[in-house]
């Protein structure tokens, strides 16, 4: 884009390197330290061991928290996909001020700080008399990731254009037939991508969850509780395993979007 002098090039590259170090250091350090012994709250870098993993295996709450996280992630992604798609279908079925207002409402939980979304839901559930549980957590996550599902589906519907639907209707298909034979098949890859990304976001969601959860905890909440109590070696093992899982999720997310990156490059 611009010709740059060698000195500027070197300083830019150095700074970029430092930033990547800042971004990835916090991800690499806990993984590395999970393979070493811990004594007096300090990692012993000269004593490699797997003892932290052994300790983790003895920690009962983790398995439950993991199951909860999966349950919440799958339910919230599924609900968000269904709701997001329906909202997007309505938005794309015409133009009106009411549709714009609806869109603004759907985006709000994604735009506002999670503390506002979380405490609104907390108060709302209390008013309704709904006790805090995994159900409320699923509701919170759904509202949060639904904005993202909605947005991706709207973009896809807009790029599809109206000719397919018009052709289908001209050939005598009902609205339902058009929906299931024309629109949904064209949305499949978009829905998979949005679903994976939603799951990844839900997997790590902490702030809303912390406010709306009862006694059940998801993995981030469990970690939060463990970290507040102080340093124990099994935290590092758990952190390493979670990072590994999220890394797999990241690859899945990225694999969904290669064509978009190619077309822009």
């Amino acid at each position, binding site marked *: 884009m611009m010709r740059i002098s060698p000195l500027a090039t070197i300083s830019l590259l150095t700074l970029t390197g430092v930033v990547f170090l800042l971004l990835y250091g916090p991800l690499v350090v806990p993984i590395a330290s999970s393979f070493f012994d811990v004594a007096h709250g300090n990692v012993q870098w000269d004593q490699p061991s797997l003892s932290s993993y052994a300790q983790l295996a003895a920690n009962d709450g983790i398995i439950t928290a993991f199951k909860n996280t999966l349950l919440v992630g799958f339910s919230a992604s599924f609900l968000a996909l269904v709701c997001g798609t*329906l909202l997007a279908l309505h938005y794309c079925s015409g133009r009106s001020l009411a549709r714009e207002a609806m869109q603004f409402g759907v985006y709000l939980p994604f735009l506002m700080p999670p503390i506002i979304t979380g405490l609104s839901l907390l*108060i709302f559930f209390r008013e309704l008399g709904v006790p805090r549980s995994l159900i409320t957590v699923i509701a919170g996550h759904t509202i949060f990731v639904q904005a993202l599902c909605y947005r991706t589906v709207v973009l896809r519907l807009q790029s599809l254009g109206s000719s397919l639907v018009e052709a289908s209707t001209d050939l005598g298909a009902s609205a339902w037939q058009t929906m299931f034979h024309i629109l949904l098949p064209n949305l499949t890859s978009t829905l998979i991508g949005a679903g994976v990304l939603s799951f990844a976001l839900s997997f790590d969601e902490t702030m809303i969850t912390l406010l709306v959860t009862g006694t059940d905890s998801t993995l981030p909440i469990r970690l939060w509780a463990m970290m507040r109590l102080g340093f124990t070696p099994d935290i590092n093992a758990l952190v390493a395993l979670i990072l590994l899982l999220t890394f797999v999720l990241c690859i899945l997310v990225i694999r969904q979007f290669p064509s978009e990156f190619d077309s822009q490059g």
Partner: protein
Amino acid sequence: MIFVGSARTGLWPRALAAFAYALPVIVIALPLFSFLSYSFFRVDNGEIVRDLGLFNYRRFFTDAIFIPVLLQTCILCLAVAGLATLIGYPVAFQLANLKGRRRYFLLLLVLVPLLMSYIIKIYAIRSILGGNGFLNRFLLWAGFITQPSSLFVFNLNAVLLTLTILLIPFAILPIFLSLERIPKSLIEASNDLGATNLQTFRWIVLPLSLPGIVTASTFVFVLAIGDFLTPQMVGGQSGFTFGRIIYSQFGTAFNWPFGSALAAILTFVIVIVIGLGNRLERRWL
């Protein structure tokens, strides 16, 4: 258009419309409304009393603690936004200068940490900044200090550093997008007319990327001011922020109405900041 001709008036579009308007009202507008109405309630003997009044807001303005904490938090988040933008700009510039696939691959690498657990990153940064962490070991090794420093953990510095590291990707992305949109022809024209690289940057690239800078700073500011986990984890006793006070009202302090009022004030601050950002962007476009 999803519905054509006679399908527009059928049952299915009507049901869809009913669902599309009911859902955001029930799950988004009503919770926000109940949160706002709580801010006018008050707590008496651990019970929430439902008579409307400005009690909580009066307490915010008259009690000597809250306004200074809010100001301090705003300054902290401004610093985070400034720092993240300052560090993010050169990186975005570097990325925008790359060609083809490498550009998007590196952009992806910048964004990947955003999907990684927020709480793990805070925890890891805390251990890196702490007394026995890598930062102190490095400074000791390099001879800058003679004993481990506690300057970087459990205070506001720690909150500043941690938030900046966490939020840098949010600064890089909008700046990158604004740099990418600058037409190559403008830069070529500037070069052809004899401008030096520095002049081209100062008079062409920088002004055209200002909207991106504003978006980046607003983004980072809003995310930083709404965060209560980071200050709670790395802030210690002295690193008190507004978000932490709000969170404590819903936990240990158990004063939901007052917490709601503080959250409403936080929302007000955020709306003002976003509004200011929009105005600035429009002026430059």
